[in-house]
C-alpha cells in the first residue's frame, strides 16, 4: 500500500480509542496525584507495547502506578522483587522432577515472567545474570529454557523500577538491557498542593479502589488502532534526524552531544519514538503523529539510550539534558524558513 493510498483511521475510531485510553489515564490520575506527565508517558508506552523503566526515589508511587495499571487493564499481573540472590530461574521458571503414575519426569514450572504485566521492582538490585534473563523475554516475548522456547502471553509488558540512591550492592543495568526499555521515566517528587490533596483525600495513603476499565480485547483493538495512526514522512524524518544527531560523529550533532556523549542512540530509539508517538497521538485524539508528539516522547525514549562521557558527570549533564539540547538544535522541518523570513 502506498502512502497516498493510506487510509486514515476514522474520526469515530479515534474518538472511541481516545475515550478508552482516557478511561485508563483518568483512573491512573486518581491513583497518582500530580503525575500527569508520567501517566501520559506510561500510557503512550502501553499503547506502543513498550517496556517502561521507572526511576525515582522511594515512596513516589512507582510500584503503585504499575499495580493500578494492571488492575485497570484486567490483565494477569506478577511482581518480582529483585534482590541480589535472585536467580534467573526464579524469573523464567524451571523444570522440577515430579513423580506421576510411578514415573519420574521433569515438569516445567512457569516463572513469574509468564504474565501480561510484570513488575520488576528494584531491578538494579539483581545480579547481571538475573537481569539478563529478561533480555529475550522483553525483546522477543519468549523464553528459552533447556533449549525449549516458550512464548510469553500477549500482551506482555515489563514495568521495572529502580532507585537512583543507595547504589551500594546494586548492579546498574547494562546498555543492552536499558535499550530494551522503550521509556525510562524519571518519577519526580510532588508539589505541596498535591501532598495536601493526598492527605485530605486518602486514608493511610491508600488509593481509591479500582475496577478494570479495559479488557484484553479492547486493549488489542487499541493496539491495532495505534498501528493505524499515520506517521507523516516529514515527522519520521525529524525523528530520524534526532536519533542520528545523538551520535557525536554526526555532522548535525550539537556541541552538547559532541562534548558529553560517548555513544549515541541505537535504531531502537527511532523505532521507540515512532511507536510511542503513535500512542501519544491517539491519546491526544489525532489520526496522525505530529512534530509535537515526537518532541514529547524524545526525552524518555532517548535519554537512557545514550552512553555519556565522564565529562557529562563532571558537568552535571544527564541524558535528558542532552536530549533537550538536541531538541533545541535540530529543527522540526528539514528545510525550514529562508533566512529572510522569521516567525512572528
Amino acid at each position, binding site marked *: 500500500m502506498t502512502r497516498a493510498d493510506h487510509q486514515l483511521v476514522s474520526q469515530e475510531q479515534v474518538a472511541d480509542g481516545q475515550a478508552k485510553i482516557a478511561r485508563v489515564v483518568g483512573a491512573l490520575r486518581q491513583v497518582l496525584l500530580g503525575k500527569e506527565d508520567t501517566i501520559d508517558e506510561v500510557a503512550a508506552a502501553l499503547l506502543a507495547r513498550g517496556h517502561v523503566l521507572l526511576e525515582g526515589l522511594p515512596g513516589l508511587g512507582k510500584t503503585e502506578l504499575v499495580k493500578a495499571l494492571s488492575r485497570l487493564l484486567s490483565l494477569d499481573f506478577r511482581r518480582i522483587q529483585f534482590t541480589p540472590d535472585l536467580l534467573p530461574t526464579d524469573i523464567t521458571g524451571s523444570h522440577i522432577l515430579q513423580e506421576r503414575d510411578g514415573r519420574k519426569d521433569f515438569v516445567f514450572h512457569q516463572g513469574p515472567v509468564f504474565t501480561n504485566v510484570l513488575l520488576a521492582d528494584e531491578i538494579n538490585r539483581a545480579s547481571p545474570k538475573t537481569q539478563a534473563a529478561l533480555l529475550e523475554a522483553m525483546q522477543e516475548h519468549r523464553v528459552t529454557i533447556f533449549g525449549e522456547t516458550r512464548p510469553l502471553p500477549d500482551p506482555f509488558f515489563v514495568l521495572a523500577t529502580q532507585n537512583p540512591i543507595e547504589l551500594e550492592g546494586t548492579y546498574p543495568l547494562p546498555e543492552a538491557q536499558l535499550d530494551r526499555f522503550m521509556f525510562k521515566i524519571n518519577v519526580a517528587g510532588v508539589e505541596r498542593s498535591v501532598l495536601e490533596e493526598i492527605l485530605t483525600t486518602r486514608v493511610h495513603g491508600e488509593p481509591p479502589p479500582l475496577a478494570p476499565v479495559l479488557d484484553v480485547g479492547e486493549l488489542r483493538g487499541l493496539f491495532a488502532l495505534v498501528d493505524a495512526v499515520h506517521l507523516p514522512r*516529514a515527522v519520521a524524518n525529524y525523528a530520524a534526524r534526532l536519533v542520528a544527531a545523538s551520535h557525536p560523529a554526526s555532522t548535525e550533532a550539537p556541541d552538547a552531544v559532541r562534548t558529553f556523549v560517548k555513544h549515541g542512540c541505537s535504531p531502537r530509539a527511532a523505532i521507540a519514538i515512532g511507536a510511542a508517538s503513535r500512542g501519544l497521538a491517539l491519546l491526544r485524539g489525532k489520526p496522525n503523529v505530529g512534530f509535537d508528539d515526537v518532541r514529547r516522547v524524545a526525552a524518555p525514549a532517548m535519554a537512557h539510550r545514550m552512553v555519556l562521557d565522564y565529562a557529562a558527570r563532571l558537568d552535571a549533564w544527564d541524558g535528558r539534558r542532552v536530549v533537550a539540547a538536541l531538541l533545541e538544535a535540530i529543527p522540526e522541518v528539514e528545510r525550514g524558513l529562508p533566512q529572510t523570513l522569521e516567525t512572528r
Partner: protein
Amino acid sequence: MPTMPESVTRALRRLGRRLTLGLFLEIWPAWAAGSLLVAGLVALACRLFVPAAAPFLHWLWLTPVAAILPAAFICRRRSYRPAEVVAVADWLNGGLGTLLTLHETNDSSWIDSALAARTSAFTLPRLRPWRRLVTVPPALAFMATALWVPQRMPRQTNVIFAETIAGNLAAAVTELKEQQLITAEEEKKLEEEIERIRKGAQERVDASSWEAADSLRDKLAADVAEKQDAIKWAEQTLARYEAAAASGPSPDGIAAAHSAELMKALERLAERGLLAGAPQELQQLAAGAKLPADAASLKKLMASLAKHLAGVNGRMAGVGKLGKDARRFDPSEFPLGKSGPDGDGTPGRGGVTRGRADADLTWGKETSPLDRFKSQTLPPGAARSPDDWAPVVELPGAPRESPSASKSAAARQYSAVAGQSAWRRSLAPRHQSAVKKYFDK
C-alpha cells in the same frame, strides 16, 4: 474530492509565495553584492588600463539588476516543493502533523474535522530581508569608489602617441624620398632620428616628444629651403651665364667668373643631392669636368641643365610647404599637460606633474633620452701661426710704440682711451696689501 479545506489551500498558496520571495531575497543579495564587487573590479581595471571603456562604465550599475537572472534561476531550482511547503505550514501551525497527513494521504474523511479546520490558522512568517541585504551597500560603495577613480592613461597610450608623432615625420621623409630630394645617407640619418623620437615617446609622452618632432621637422624644412636656395642660385647663375653668352664675347675674366660661379652652383646642387637623375654630362660637370668649349655643346649642356632644374623645381613645389603646414606643438592641446582639478595650475597646491610648493625636491624624475645632451665629436683643432694675423681696423686713438717713454708715462699718455683708468687710482694704504696679494698670487 479535495482532501483539504479551501481555507487551508489558500493559506498554503500564500505561504508558498512568501517562501519563494524569502528564498529570492536570500539568494539575490549575495549575487548582487558579488556582481557589484566584480563590476567594481572591472571598473577599476578599466580606469587604470582601458581608457576606451570609460564611456560604457556607467552601464555597470545595472549588474545588480542582471543578477536577478541567476538568482531567479537558482531560486527556481531550490524552490520549495509542495511537501516542503506543507511541512513548514504544519510546523508553523504547532507541529500537529495534521496538514502533513492530509497532504500525504488522499483520505478526505478528516476534511470537515475540527483538526483540519484549525490547520489554516497559522501565521505567515514575517519578511526580514535586511540581514541579507546588509552586504549590498558596501558593494555599492566599492563600485562607486571604483567609478570615482580618475581615468588613467596607460602605457599603451604612449605607443599610440609615439606612432602618431613618428608617423608624421616618416611621411614627410617618404615624400622627400619619392621626389628624389634626399640622398640615401640623409634618409638613413633621418630614419635613425625618427626612431629615436619614437622610442623616447614610448617611454614617456610629454612635451619633449612633440618638441623633438618639431625640431626634426624644422630641420627638414631647413634642408628643403637650402635645396630651394641651391636651385634658385643655379637658375640665376645659369641665366647670367646664358645672358653673358647671348651678349657676345666678353672679357676673359668675366667669362671665367661666370663659369666658376656656374660650376660652384652645380657643386652645391650635387652636395644637396639635387643632381640625382640628372644627365651624365651634368654629373660629370659637377664632379669637376670643364665646360665644353664649343658653343653647340655648351648650349646643349645649358639646355639640359635648364631642363633638369625645371624638373627639380617642379618636384620641389610639392614639398615646398613641408615644415610650413605641419601642425606645431601646442601645449594647450597636449592631453597630459592639461591642468586638472588636482590644482596643477594653482601655485602651492601641487599636482600630478609636480609636488607642492613646500614639498621636498626629488631627483628621481630623470630627463628623457630625447632631452639629454647628445655627445658630439668636435673637429680636430688646428694651431694657428702667430704670424697669421692682419689688422682689422685701426682706431684713431690707437697707441703707437714709443720705446723712449716709460711704462708709467705711456700709461698716463693713453689712459683716456686705454680704458685702464682703474690703474691710476690711488689706493688707500690699508687696501694696497690686499690688492697686491690678489694680483700676485
